[in-house]
Structure formats: C-alpha cells, structure tokens
C-alpha cells in the first residue's frame, strides 16, 4: 500500500573517477572539473566533482526502480546545492533515500528524494512525480 509517508528503502550508489568518465562520454559533458583534478583545483574546487546531472540521473534511477521502470517518471526536478567530491583512487558513496510526499488527484505519486555524500545533502528539493500503476505490488 502506497500512502503519504511510505518510505523507499535507502540505497547507496558508488561513484569514482571511472564512473564520471563514463557519464561524461555518455552525456557529452566533458567539462574538465569532472575529470581533471588540477583543473578543478585551479578554479577553486576542493577536487574533481561529479556532474550534478549524474547525481540527478542516479537519484532518478532510484525513483524509477521503485516506481516500476524508467518510463514511469512524468516530472523530475532538483536544485544542485553541494558538489559530490570525488577524490582519486577511491569511490565515494551517494546515499539516496525517498518518501512519498503526496498522492495527486490524478493518482500520480510525488516522491521527495534525498541524496547525501560525505554527510552533506547534495540535492535540494529533489522531487519526482511518478506513475505507479505498473509497479509490482
């Protein structure tokens, strides 16, 4: 039974430099702040940071896996509040969780999503509106 307050179990996505390279190639976003440590530091960042859109994509995957597939999402929005810092030679955890925030009159479900890395919330007001009709009960 899905109701306001239903919690989606937390999940951890691992991000490292190799996953960033893969996302850069797949998305076409080759901004060096996501790959080149020297460049990232030269523009005042602590280290290489993940693409905000990569974080958004992973959180979207979390939402659509719960809702029943990647075609279930009707609206999806977020603010990028803090960067996910990705040092060399190690992977960082992106911890994602969610809760049903509202059931709309149309039957669509609004998920309120949270993503943290290194103890910091990296997304603000992350919300997905999903169609749960195809969800396995």
């Amino acid at each position: 039974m899905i109701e306001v307050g239903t919690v989606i179990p937390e999940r951890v996505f691992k991000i490292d430099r190799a996953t960033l390279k893969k996302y850069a190639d797949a998305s076409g976003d080759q901004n060096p702040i996501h790959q080149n440590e020297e460049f990232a530091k030269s523009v005042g960042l602590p280290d290489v940071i993940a693409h905000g859109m990569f974080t958004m994509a992973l959180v979207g995957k979390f939402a659509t896996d719960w809702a029943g597939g990647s075609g279930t999402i009707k609206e999806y929005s977020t603010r990028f509040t803090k960067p996910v810092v990705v040092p060399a030679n190690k992977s960082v955890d992106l911890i994602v969780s969610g809760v049903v925030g509202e059931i709309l009159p149309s039957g669509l479900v609004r998920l309120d999503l949270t993503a943290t890395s290194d103890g910091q919330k990296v997304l603000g007001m992350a919300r997905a509106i999903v169609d749960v009709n195809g969800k396995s009960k």
Partner: protein
Amino acid sequence: MINPDSIGRSFAANEAVTITQSQIDAFAAAIGESDTSIAPPTFAIRISLEQSQNFLTSSEVGVKWDRIVHGDQKFEIKKPLKAGDQVLCTSVIENYKQMAGNEFITARSDLAVNGELAVSAWSTLVVRA
C-alpha cells in the same frame, strides 16, 4: 551581463537531432539502467543543454560558458525518448534575474518528436560574477 533583448526570444535548432540506440545504451550503462528500450529520464539533457549552450553563447546573447554553474534542473516528460526519434529542440530564456552580481538564467528547452512535444527541460544556469 547578457543582452536583455534576448530574454523571452525563441531559439530553434537548425535541424533535428536523431537519437541512436548506442547513445541510449551508453547513457543507461553509465547510470546502471538495464532497460534500453527507452531513454532514461534525464537523457534529454544531452540535447537540451547543448542547445542551451549554443544559443546562450551566441553573440546575440553573450554568455561566457566557463562562468556557468548549474543551479537547478527540471524535466517534464510527456513521452520518453527512444532510438530513431528525430528531436527538434526550441529554447527560450524564460526567466532572468541578477542577485549579488551573479546572473540567474532559466532556459527552457522543448524537445519535439514528429511535431509533438515529448520532453520539456528547464535549466537554471548561474553565471558567476
């Protein structure tokens, strides 16, 4: 600062972009998605952000792309994109404000397939002072 005359003006791509299966496969693989029959929800950014970059950095608007930080992002998906779709993208600066010397530009991109709106994407881009 951007050319104020550009706010609210529509910029249409010169030609449609065709989505290939290998683009969807690569994007899905990068985020761990196994269903490649449709494009993942945020795949549209590939098209919308490139289009935004093209028009925002044109001499008519005048944004310096290396000053840009992505502030927020929204998608409305009427119909998921899939391989073979020919996407025509039209963009407009829907909102513009200045705060503490930074510029906040909200660019909306409408991605149409066969003349029908499939995905709308809003990107708020912050041009740092």
